[in-house]
C-alpha cells in the first residue's frame, strides 16, 4: 500500500496536470479545483487498485478524464453527445480551412485558449484528451464510447472550428485597425 507521504508527493507532482485536464474538459460546467480535489479523493480511495509498476500520472489522468466525462454526460442529457460518426465525417471532409500554424505564430495563445474553452463539448473533449493527455485515438474512442474514426473526425472538426474562430477574430481585428486608422486620417 502506498503510504500517505507517497500520496502527498504524488499530489504535489500531479495536481497541476490534473487541474489543467479538468479545466480543459469541464470548461464552465464545474469548478476545476473541485473536480481535481474529487479526482484525488477517488484516487486515494482506490489506491489499492493502482499498479505501481506504471506511472502515477497516467493512472490519475485516467481517473480524471473518466470523472470529467461522467460530469459532462450527466449534465448534458442528449442521447448523442458526440453526434453520429457519419455526420461528423462528412462535415470534416467538407471543411478545408487554413491550418492554425501561421495564426499561432502571432502570439495569440490567449485567444486560442478562449476559443478552446468555448468549443462545443463534443469537440473539446476529444481534442483535450488527445492533445493534453496524449491519448491515442483508440483511447479517446474508448473513453468517450465512440468509434476510432468518429474520434478522429471530432478532433479534425475541433481544429477546424478553432481555425475558423481565430480567422474570424483576425478579420474583425484587422477591420477595427483599418477603421481606427481611417478615423485618425479623417481627424
Amino acid at each position, binding site marked *: 500500500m502506498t503510504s500517505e507521504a507517497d500520496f502527498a508527493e504524488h499530489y504535489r507532482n500531479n495536481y497541476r496536470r490534473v487541474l489543467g485536464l479538468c479545466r480543459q474538459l469541464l470548461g464552465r460546467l464545474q469548478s476545476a479545483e473541485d473536480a481535481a480535489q*474529487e479526482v484525488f479523493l477517488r484516487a486515494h480511495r482506490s489506491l489499492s487498485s493502482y499498479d505501481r509498476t506504471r506511472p502515477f500520472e497516467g493512472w490519475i489522468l485516467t481517473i480524471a478524464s473518466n470523472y470529467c466525462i*461522467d460530469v459532462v454526460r450527466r449534465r448534458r442529457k442528449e442521447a448523442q453527445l458526440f453526434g453520429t460518426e457519419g455526420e461528423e465525417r462528412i462535415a470534416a471532409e467538407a471543411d478545408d480551412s487554413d491550418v492554425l500554424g501561421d495564426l499561432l505564430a502571432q502570439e495569440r495563445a490567449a485567444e486560442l485558449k478562449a476559443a*478552446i474553452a468555448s468549443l462545443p463539448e463534443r469537440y473539446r473533449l476529444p481534442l483535450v484528451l488527445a492533445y493534453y493527455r496524449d491519448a491515442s485515438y483508440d483511447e479517446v474512442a474508448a473513453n468517450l464510447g465512440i468509434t476510432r474514426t468518429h474520434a478522429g473526425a471530432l478532433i*479534425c472538426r475541433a481544429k477546424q472550428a478553432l481555425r475558423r474562430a481565430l480567422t474570424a477574430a483576425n478579420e474583425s481585428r484587422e477591420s477595427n485597425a483599418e477603421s481606427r486608422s481611417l478615423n485618425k486620417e479623417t481627424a
Partner: protein
Amino acid sequence: MTTRCPSPLARSMYADGELPAADAAALEAHLESCVACRARIGALRAERVALRALLADVEPAEVAVPRLERPLGARGLALLGLGALAAGLFAASLWNALAEAVPSELHWLSPLDPGALLSLLFSFALFLTNEGFAMLTSTVELAALAVLLALLAYASTAFLKPRAGAAVLLSVVLLVAALPLPSHAFELRKSDGATAVAAGEKIDDTLLAVGQTVSIDGDVNGDLLAFARVVTIRGHVAGDVITGGETVEVQGTVGGSVYAAGRGVTIKQMRIGRNLYTAGRDVAVESGVEISGNATAAGSSVNVDGKVGIDLTTAADAVVIRGEVTRNVMGFGQTITLLAPATVGGNLVAHVAANDNLQIATGATVRGNVDKQITQGPRGQRTVSRYLTGSFYTWQIVRLGAAFLAGLLLLWAVPGLRTATIADAGAGVKDGAIGLVTAIALPVVAFIACITVVGIPLGVLSVVVWLFGLYFAKIVVAQMIGRRLFVSPQGVPHYAATLLAGLVVVIIAINLPWIGWLIGIALTLLGLGMIVTYVSERSGRTL
C-alpha cells in the same frame, strides 16, 4: 502519376500518426508527388505541436498546490464513529433531562423537529426518546458496545502498530466495565395467530408480544410492548405499556405509563401509575379509569369519562369530557363539550373553531377559569406572534450555531459533500423524490425492524440514521446555496464561509410566515435526496 489529394480528415489523422497503416502508405505515396499536401501535412504537425504546448500551459497563478485534503480513512471513520456515539449518548441524556423539565406539549420545539413532517414521527420520536428509551437502552448499549468493539478491533488491525494492541485491549476492558451491561432481559412471544399470556401467568422480564391478536391476562413485571390487529390487555403490568393495533383495549393495572395507538383505543376499568398518551380515530377513556399523572389524547373523537390525576391535554375534532380532572384541561378541537358530572379542578383552556363550540352543560364544573380561544385557521395566532418574541430569535441563533457546528463536522468528515450540487431542475425534482421516499421508507423500515425482533438494533439504527439525515439535509442544501452565493472567477472561499452564509439563508427561508414550513420540508427532502444520491454514487460507481 498523381492520385487524388487525401481528405482533410485523412490528413488530420495522418498528422496525428493515427491513420491506419494501409491508408497511411497510400497517403505517403501521394505526398511524393503533391507539394501542396506536403506543405499541409507539415503545417498540421506544427499545429499539433503548438496546440499541445498551449494546452499543457496551465497558468502559474492558479497552480499553488492546496493543502492536501485527506479523505476519511479508517482512523477518521473510527473517530467519527466514536464522536457520533458520544454525541448521541450526550444528546440522549440531555434530551431526557430536558424532557423532565419541559411539558410534553412543547416537544415540537426540539431542533430535531423536521418541520412537523408527520405527527407519526412525533409520537415515534417521543416513544423512542422518552419512556421507550428506558426499555431500549439496553439494546442500544449492547449495539453500541458491539460497534465499539468492532471499531476497535478493526482499528487495531488496520492502522495501529502491533504494540498498541495492548492499549486497545485495555481500553476494551475499560469500556466493557464502564458501559452498563444490559440490564433488561426480553421475552418475546410471537405467533401468526393469537398470542396470549394466560391469567395467573407471570412474566418477570419485559415482554414483546406480536401476533394477529394479543391478549394479556397475566402479570408482566417489566414493560409490555404489544402490537397486533387486536390488542387486549387485562392483566397487571409493572412497567410501561406500549401498544399499537387496529383495535386496542386496555384494562387492568399499569405501574408506569401507557402509550396506546390504534384506530379505536379504549381504556377501561384501569389504574395507570403514571401518564397516558394515546392517539387513534376514536379514543375512549371510560369511567372507572384512574390515571395518576397526565393524560394526553388525540384523535378524531376523544371521550374522557375517567379520572385524570393531574392535567388533561387533548386534541380532536370532537372532545367530550364527563370525567374528573384534578388540575387543568387544555383542549384543541372543533368542538369541546363538558357533560355532567365532569369536574375540572383547575383551569379550562379551550381552543375551538367558533364561539358556540365550547359547551359546558349544567352539572359540569370548572373550578378555575374558563379561557376560550377561537382558533383562526390552522396556524392561528401562534404564527403571527412568534416573530415578536425574543425567544424566537434566540432559538434561531442557537439553531444556526448548532447547525453550523454540525455542518463543519460533516463537511470536514465528508469533503465530497462540500461540492454536492444539483445540475438542473430535473435533477432537483429527482433528488426531492428520492428524499421523499427516504423520509418515508426509513421509519417504515425501522418500524418493521422493531416489530420483528431480530431487528430492534436495526430499527433503532434506522431511526438514528433517519434523524441525522433529516438534520443534515438542510445543512447540505445550505452549503450548496452558500457556494452559489460566492461564485466568482477566483474560486470559492473556505467551506466554513459558504456554509454559514447558506445556513443564514436557509434559516430565514424556513421561518418565513405561511410558506416557511413548506420551504423547510422541501429543503429537507431535497437535501436528503442529495445525501442519498451522493452516498449511492460513492458506493456504486467505479472509477
